[in-house]
């Protein structure tokens, strides 16, 4: 992928800021394995740190899935979080779900709600509900204009259709045992709202307007990598955005950042401290490690590889891939 040559930022490197505050970013127990099954996606969202899209060829194959499942069986993960690209476009998704199911108590699947024709979604929902997979759906905003500006024309409408389908199957409905969460992220170079306020608003708005229910809303900060970084540079927002992130550095957020408890595996089986480090090719703890190289999860106290995009996880209350930690 072509890289951006950002303007000279005069920004203190993230690693220096940690030293200044007498902090070190090290691992806690690894509880979540995030499996990125590939960069193939039907969309080309403006904020995508992966730069996923319809032309990407990187897709996790069956033998890598077997290696990932075997790794999960050697570790004691509490959650496996499947992401992409659009994971639904990986033909081996059902195979992954069924083979990893016995090795973790909880499975999660991230979806953009739009990658399959409606009928195929019905089949997928059947499979996911059978394994009680938690669905984490992206919906940046309750505004059609904002959502479509970020993800493409017609995406808002299609997302609502699939959310309704998920509700019909019991997902997001009381006492069904099927969890449906929504992830919202800002549709531009600004920070997300407070998670609790946004959840209230999404819940009342989606219910009132479209009768849609869901369980939890997570807000995430856009990470200045990949396509989002390019958009920031092109729209002359890069410098301001980076400074805004850095100026909002909150030392108290370090204890709760995602990478402390996550391990991220790429489509070809290499390990990273998080999906953002994966996107920028910064390997686990700084050294290239394949999923077959480890007998167990990374150890408590192991160092985490950091770079300036880490400012997005430590701004304000701290926002991680799992949502705000406010």
């Amino acid at each position, binding site marked *: 992928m072509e890289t951006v040559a950002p303007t000279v930022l005069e920004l203190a490197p993230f690693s220096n800021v940690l030293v200044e505050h007498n902090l070190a970013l090290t691992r806690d127990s690894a509880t979540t394995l995030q499996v990125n099954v590939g960069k193939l996606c039907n969309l080309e969202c403006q904020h995508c740190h992966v730069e996923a899209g319809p032309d990407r060829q990187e897709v996790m194959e069956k033998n890598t899935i077997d290696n990932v499942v075997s790794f999960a069986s050697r570790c004691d993960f509490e959650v496996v979080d499947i992401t992409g690209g659009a994971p639904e476009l990986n033909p081996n998704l059902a195979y992954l779900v069924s083979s990893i199911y016995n090795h973790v108590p909880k499975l999660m699947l991230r979806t953009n709600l739009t990658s399959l024709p409606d009928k195929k979604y019905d089949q997928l929902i059947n499979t996911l509900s059978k394994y009680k997979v938690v669905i984490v759906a992206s919906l940046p905003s309750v*505004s059609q204009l904002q959502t479509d500006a970020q993800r493409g024309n017609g995406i808002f409408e299609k997302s609502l259709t699939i959310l309704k389908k998920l509700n019909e199957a019991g997902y997001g409905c009381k006492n069904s045992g099927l969890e449906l969460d929504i992830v919202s992220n800002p549709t531009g170079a600004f920070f997300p709202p407070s998670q609790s306020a946004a959840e209230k608003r999404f819940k009342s708005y989606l219910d009132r307007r479209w009768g849609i229910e869901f369980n939890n809303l997570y807000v995430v900060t856009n990470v200045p990598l990949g396509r989002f970084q390019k958009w920031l540079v092109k729209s002359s927002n890069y410098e301001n955005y980076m400074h805004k992130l850095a100026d909002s550095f909150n030392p108290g957020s370090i204890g709760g950042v995602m990478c402390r408890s996550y391990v991220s595996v790429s489509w070809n089986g290499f390990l990273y401290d998080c999906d953002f480090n994966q996107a920028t090719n910064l390997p686990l703890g700084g050294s290239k490690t394949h999923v077959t190289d480890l007998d167990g999860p990374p150890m408590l106290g192991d160092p985490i590889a950091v770079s300036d995009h880490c400012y997005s996880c430590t701004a304000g209350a701290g926002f991680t891939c799992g949502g705000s930690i406010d």
Partner: protein
Amino acid sequence: METYYNPKDLPKFTDIGKEAPDLAKKFFEYYTSVFKEGELTEREKALIALAVAHTIQCPYCIDAYSNACLEKGSNTAEMTEALHVAVAIRGGASLVHGLQMRKITEEVSM
């Protein structure tokens, strides 16, 4: 080009406390409390602030509350509607003074 308003000045707002720190402290404490969630949400308060900012035509406030509205989860359509509320009241206030104009002209007219 030099202008009276410079976006880079906005973060220096608290410098205003240098000459009168006690008053500034009281003002900023009050200001912060006003915008905290109460009977109204922070999002609703930011929308009111945005509308008022346009009424008083303060570029600093327009900048600050356009961003604040987005960061509290509002969208441009909602922000535009909020402006129209301010515009309606502003316009309405001018128009309703037309009653004075009518009274005066009636008094002096045949």
